[in-house]
């Protein structure tokens, strides 16, 4: 059967932008067992990549990476971390703030922050500022 003329039932859509991943370091989760080296943070500052749009929609914080065409939805904790980093705090300083706000052990928060920063960097949402 020949294609129907003039019909674009399924047109060019942003299908790649539908890849979503929720980054969810959960401070209430069991302690993540890591070596002291893994749990240490380098004290870097971060900024967003030029190809990123960050927007709060309702209760969610979305990060859209226009280069990779991925959308990430951050939970409240990851969103708070991102806020702190983009406000100029280092990763170490962010741990101090979050530990206090959530009344959570520093070791747990350090591990969660390290994992989240690593994820956001891998997704090209965050880039390390040149020292």
């Amino acid at each position, binding site marked *: 059967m020949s*294609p*129907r*003329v003039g019909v674009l039932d399924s047109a*060019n*859509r*942003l299908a790649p932008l539908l890849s979503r991943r929720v980054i969810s370091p959960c401070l209430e989760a069991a302690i993540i067992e890591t070596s002291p080296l893994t749990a240490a943070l380098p004290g870097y500052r971060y900024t967003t990549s030029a190809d990123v749009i960050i927007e709060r*929609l309702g*209760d969610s914080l979305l990060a859209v990476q226009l280069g990779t065409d991925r*959308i990430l939805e951050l939970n409240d904790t990851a969103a708070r971390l991102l806020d702190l980093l983009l406000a100029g705090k280092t990763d170490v300083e962010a741990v101090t703030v979050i530990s206090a706000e959530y009344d959570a052990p520093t070791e747990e928060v350090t591990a969660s922050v390290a994992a989240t920063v690593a994820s956001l960097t891998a997704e090209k949402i965050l880039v390390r500022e040149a020292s």
Partner: protein
Amino acid sequence: MEIFPVQFIETSPPRLDAGNPAATAWQDARGNDVAFATTCGAWHWLRVVGAGSFRFPVTSQARSVRAEVVPENASTSTVVDSYYRTVVPIALQAYGLETLHGSAVNLPGGVVALCAQPETGKSTIAYALRERGHEAVADDSVIVSLDAAESLTSEAATGRPLIHPLPFALRLRQASAKHFSSPSKASVRVEVGHRRVATGLPLELAAVVMLHRRDGLKPNLDEPAVTLRRLAPNEAFTQLLAQSLTFSLADKERKRAMVRTYLQLAAATPVYGLSYPTGLEHLKAICDRLEGLAAAPEAARDHENPPT
């Protein structure tokens, strides 16, 4: 914003088929290639398979669409129909407006866009609402903007997104056409003659409804067949994107602007999910639900869960 009649020309278009890696291919619901797009120099090209290779300038003044076509072996009416139905919406998207795959109906509370995957019933529902006395304002493509400058009047501007009506013709698949005793899809064409067309006055977009037809599932007799729920903004955003049409994703700044528009749209416009079983017998309940939404949109917020 004006749409000029398409001009028939004789020239050699660029290669626009599956053999050209530089051409973006568009498929229909069955995976058949139905169109190809590329940009060469000062022209965007969009070939609609079986109709012709259309070209329109990369830049436009006042978002006016002036296009030319190298026709394939098709009737003039088929080429013109393809122009208004397919090329014009995509050209307007390239020029900065956004285009949703859907139909739209002017209900008492404002225009409601009906978006869905192909063969879900967008046109059928729009047609049924028209039979109830409501004005259908779009089929296949809904042109959306957030430009305050294009609000109706400064006094009437509410900050809501606008839609821009284009020439269109509601087309029904065979079963629906038979149900309404209406011409079937193959014989319906957009016809505007040879005159220049101004897009209709912008209308305020009151809501977007994402249609979901449940095929083959046994109905749960304890739950209503037709359900409507308000989507959270983050869910609305990704569903709007899934129904967005775009000429190309290659221009990063255009893509950025598009994403920002849909983020704003998701934040500012109520987006609902309407779920219903297959079967024209449910059309009355669907239309009742949509008319009820238009009359009292807040009543639909979070009141129903979608069936599993």
